[in-house]
């Protein structure tokens, strides 16, 4: 059981306490997470590193409320998230959490700009016109200002991933979770994607958590969390 807590007066964006998670059923059941404690601060970029299969993705899905923990609690902006309340989880996801996955998960039928607008549409805080200009601004920031009308299939892997980053920032979430966002990219593209991610997060004071196998990228983060066998070490 390890508690990692850096920094003094910074605002906690997300916190988890004693998270446990089993995966699989019966004989093949694995105790993937064995009591994870973590605090993420606004404006700080943290990296999780660790061997394959140690439970990094699993942790990220729990923090992002995409899955349910077996025990332990998650607090977002100091408020405990009620377990087993799908409606509430969905709402928090929409308002407070942005995701970037190893795979971009863009909807192939929609253009880059429309993909970025999807989370805004659900939240419904902006008028269609505002959504459009915000989508263009976000794509501009990740260097895709001239390709907003392209379909995902007409973009390169790095570009697709940058669209996914723009999408994750659409609702200005307090927490940005990225699972190997550069996993499929070459060195140059990895760097570009990483820079977009961290720069935007820093500017907007978001808490960013990146899972990565790339030590160079990890080094660039404010904080490195090492994980092994479902725990931080």
């Amino acid at each position, binding site marked *: 059981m390890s508690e990692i807590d850096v920094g003094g007066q910074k605002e906690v964006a997300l916190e988890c306490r004693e998270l446990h998670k089993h995966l699989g059923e019966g004989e093949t059941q694995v105790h993937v997470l064995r009591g994870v404690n973590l605090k993420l601060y606004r404006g700080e970029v943290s990296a999780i590193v660790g061997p394959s299969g140690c439970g990094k993705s699993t942790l990220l899905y729990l923090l992002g409320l995409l899955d349910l923990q077996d025990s332990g609690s998650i607090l977002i902006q100091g408020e405990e998230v009620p377990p087993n309340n799908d409606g509430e989880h969905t709402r928090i996801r929409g308002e407070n959490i942005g995701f970037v996955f190893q795979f971009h998960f863009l909807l192939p039928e929609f253009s880059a700009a429309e993909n970025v607008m999807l989370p805004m549409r*659900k939240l419904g805080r902006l008028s269609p016109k505002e959504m459009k200009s915000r989508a263009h601004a976000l794509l501009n920031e990740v260097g895709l200002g001239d390709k907003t009308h392209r379909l995902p299939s007409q973009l390169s892997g790095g570009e697709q991933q940058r669209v996914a980053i723009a999408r994750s920032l659409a609702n200005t979430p307090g927490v940005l979770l990225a699972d190997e966002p550069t996993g499929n990219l070459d060195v140059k593209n990895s760097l570009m994607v990483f820079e977009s991610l961290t720069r935007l997060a820093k500017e907007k004071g978001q808490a960013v958590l990146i899972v990565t196998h790339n030590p160079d990228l990890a080094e660039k983060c404010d904080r490195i969390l090492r994980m092994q066998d479902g725990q931080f070490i």
Partner: protein
Amino acid sequence: MSLAGIVFGVGFFISTQAQLSGYQELFIETILGTDGAIRIEDRIQDANVFVAASTTKNTSTNFFITDKNNRRFVEGIEHPDNVIEAISELENFEAASPVIKGSIQLQSPLRKDNGQVYGIMVDEHIAVSALEDQIQLGSIEDFRGAPTGIIMGHKMAARLDVTVGDSIIIRAVDQQRRYRITAIFETGVSDIDKTRVFMHLSAARSLLKKPHGVSFIQVSIYDRDHAMVDAEAIERVAKHFSAPWQEREKSWMQLFKTLQISAAITVSTIIIISGLGMFSTLFMIVMDKTREIAILRSMGYTRNDISNIFLWQGVIVLICGTILGCGMGYLITFAISYLPMPLSGIFATEYFVVNSTAWHYVQAVIAAIIIVMIACFAPSRKAGKLVPGDVIRGTAA
């Protein structure tokens, strides 16, 4: 594919129902045109007037008949004028025609035949039936002007090998007389066309030796669907047993109902099969789109949002399917009505008879809605229930 199934299903549903109800309608028209909406027959035996009834002296015999409700009847109507006067107060009453009925034997130069004679008053009877339109040969006017004229069913005429202008000997009770055929009718109902002979009421009275009373009164009404209620009212007011057409032709009406229901079920299976097709297609789409579903969920789209996306697909198919299906049903129905289909027996027709009502369209659309919604519900729910974490773990591990 499923769309086509729904289009055909709805289309066939509408056209088969239209045919069946067309035939039913024709059948009802035929009934009303021959035996009328309501037939008032035997007097209900009232304890108080029992003595009066049984002591009336006339040549016709009074029988006491007991029906299943244990009511007793006196055969025939002794005072038709009183009865008609009483029932003409009814709001729905249109016209009434007193009729004397009896068994007869007909003798043409070549053959003999048995039949039923109906003694009628021409104008009254035309008002309660379609007799005038059923005349095939000769005319009602000839009949009106000939005291010994008769109107004969066309099948009977064919069997006796006689035609308009011929004279024929009719035997009844214990006498025989000669009559002249002034017209030949066809109702399409072979039983009637084979046996029925109309003559003037006064002629029938003397032939059958029934100087008083009549056998029954045929009544026509404005609203035929009200016949049941009217018949009951007549029984109450006129104290005579009266049978509305629905009751007289109960077994036929039930047959039509059964045919309509079974056709509806048969045709609905087309819709059901396309529903199954939709069900599996939609399931496959859901399985194919799990990533997209997971990512939408991760963005804050709720279970219902996801389910609705898939339900919408069903709704779109449903809307297109029912609109096209209704159009197709209309066209089929229209086309069928021009198909030659000579028929006679319980009614006569040369073409397919159709009768479309908005109700058939409503029924078909309701059936399609129910089936499609059931087919879409499970896949859509399944889509909503996907746990995004599981999906993403499966794809990005």
